[in-house]
């Protein structure tokens, strides 16, 4: 296709496939310059924060689990933590370990679905996983088996793999036996090798030479890679307790999105998710993950969003290792939960969803009835960063024909594994060259 720098153009994609939810992207180019980028999210608002008011504090984890079929544990964990902070209870020991274990299951199934089935086809030039499976059947079979392992962890601990029903304020309704967890071990051993093979494969993909100085925001815990708890930290030195979140972050409504846009006060955009966790918590990864990062020449810092697929691979290896560690040390606790009674107050909860920071705050009255709820899902927080990536990426690739340019823009969005239905479902993309 001839160089079209002199022309203005609009590129439109009606549906960005392989993302969760409904939205559209509009890019208007004037020559090589991006005049406008809008990630238009038209997923109907779901009003969870409104209909949680008036419900019992014990119902909140099961209600918020329904926000997402891929990452229900994130919503359950953040709401549970918030309620426990109000009740003033601490859940530790084996119950805390079991919480990390079920979160590992969610990371495995979510990361593998995105990495192998939704994102890998971008790099290998296939329209979808079905087309990819014709040439790489073993890769797809391995990914399906890995995803199933993640789902099985969710089922064994949560009662079912989607919208688990066994988590509650204070712990679980029923805890697994040592034998039930040990049954998973041999599959975890297989999974570790399979995840490393998959990681080796994705690390050979051709990555566009694109980097950005991101303001990464993630949780940080003094002694572990963040999953269920920690403080909130950022690249520029932010280090805050959960109660301070809305002192530093603000949400605003923009006309083109039914999801609120978040910003870190004083900054335009920030990134949450695997890239942020990795850059801010590399030291907390295991020796095996460090060795893999070194072998793959990834290093402790990564600013190329296209390499998020490699980082998801490393986090999958981490989640498998962590699951094995927890299972090997597991002793069935005498009690499945720590009792908690409600008292009037405000609580804060945050956890690391596969896509990033999932922040919740609630107010309850003395009877445990919810009087206020506010939830900041990861994809809503990443919207500005997705738009900014495109603003900076497109000028360098504006010479590409519309179909190639569109493909690259969709791929850039998929770097974030966006879950649009969480954030407020289809993504329509249009590039306007005038």
């Amino acid at each position, binding site marked *: 296709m001839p160089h079209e720098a002199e022309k203005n153009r609009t590129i439109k994609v009606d549906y960005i*496939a*392989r*993302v*969760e939810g409904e939205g559209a992207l509009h890019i208007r180019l004037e020559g090589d310059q991006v005049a406008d980028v809008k990630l238009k999210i038209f997923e109907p608002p779901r009003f969870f924060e409104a209909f949680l008011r008036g419900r019992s504090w014990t119902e909140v984890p099961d209600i918020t689990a*329904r*926000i*997402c*079929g*891929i990452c229900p544990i994130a919503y359950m964990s953040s709401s549970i933590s918030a309620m426990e902070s109000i009740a003033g209870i601490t859940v530790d020991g084996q119950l805390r370990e079991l919480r990390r274990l079920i979160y590992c299951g969610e990371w495995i199934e979510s990361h593998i*679905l*995105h990495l192998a*089935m*939704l994102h890998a086809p971008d790099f290998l030039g296939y329209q*979808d*996983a*079905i087309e990819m*499976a*014709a040439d790489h*059947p073993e890769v*797809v*079979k391995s990914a*399906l088996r890995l*995803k*199933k*392992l993640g*789902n*099985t962890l969710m*089922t*064994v601990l949560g009662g*079912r*793999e*989607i*919208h688990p029903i066994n988590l509650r304020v204070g712990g679980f309704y029923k805890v697994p036996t040592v034998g039930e967890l040990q*049954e*998973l071990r*041999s*599959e975890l051993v*297989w999974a570790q090798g399979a995840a490393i093979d998959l990681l080796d494969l994705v690390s050979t993909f051709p990555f566009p030479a694109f980097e950005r100085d991101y303001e990464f925001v993630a949780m940080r815990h003094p002694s572990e890679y963040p999953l269920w708890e920690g403080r909130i930290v950022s690249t520029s030195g932010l280090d805050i307790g959960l109660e301070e979140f809305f002192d530093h972050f603000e949400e605003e409504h923009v006309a083109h999105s039914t999801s609120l846009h978040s910003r870190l006060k004083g900054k335009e955009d920030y990134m949450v998710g695997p890239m942020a966790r990795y850059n801010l918590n590399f030291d907390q990864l295991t020796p095996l993950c460090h060795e893999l990062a070194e072998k793959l020449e990834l290093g402790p810092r990564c600013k190329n969003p296209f390499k998020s697929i490699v980082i998801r691979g490393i986090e999958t290896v981490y989640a498998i290792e962590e699951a094995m560690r927890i299972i090997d040390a597991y002793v069935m606790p005498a009690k499945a939960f720590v009792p908690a009674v409600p008292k009037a107050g405000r609580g804060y909860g945050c956890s690391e969803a596969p896509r990033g920071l999932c922040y919740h705050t609630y107010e309850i009255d003395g009877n445990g009835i919810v009087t206020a709820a506010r939830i900041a899902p990861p994809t809503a927080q990443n919207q500005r960063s997705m738009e900014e990536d495109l603003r900076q990426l497109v000028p360098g690739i504006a010479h590409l024909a519309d179909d190639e340019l569109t493909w690259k823009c969709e791929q850039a969005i998929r770097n974030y594994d966006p879950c649009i*239905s969480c954030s407020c*479902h*289809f993504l329509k993309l249009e590039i306007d060259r005038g």
Partner: protein
Amino acid sequence: MVDSAALFPRAPSRTLLIGIGNPDRGDDGLGPHIVRALAPSLSGIVTPIIHGGDGATLMECWQVSDHVVLVDCVRSGAAPGTLHRFDARRDEIPCDFFHYSSHAFGVAEAIGLSRTLKRLPERLIIHGIEGSSYDWGSGLSPEVARQVDTICRLISEEVRPSGLLETATCQEHHHA
């Protein structure tokens, strides 16, 4: 390893009857409605499963059976209540008939991927019924409700020739 055989006990003599959909979303609840309606009369003949439509777990379900009948509400532009029947081993399944599931990997994708990976059950029949209303809590539309008896009869005739009498417990798998 808790494999699919543990989650979905293998019953080679039984047909899996899978109803896809969300009972709270109007006509999308047709699949679950049909499975619940048929489970007592087909006890011992089918293993009834209510499923949210996630493609990957759907593939796991049908790995354990040679015969699968799947019921789902579809949206093709035909008149509400129109019945569509596909044989997955013979017919192309139009992707846009089925609702997108989590991350756009739903029924049609599961069938396509299973075909590519040579993991299709020996027999996979899909009954698709054209829906019209998907409002929260609205129940089946009159056009779709009128077809329930016909769909039940068609499925019964399809699965009846085989099986021993056992009590079937309905499994449920949901998504967002």
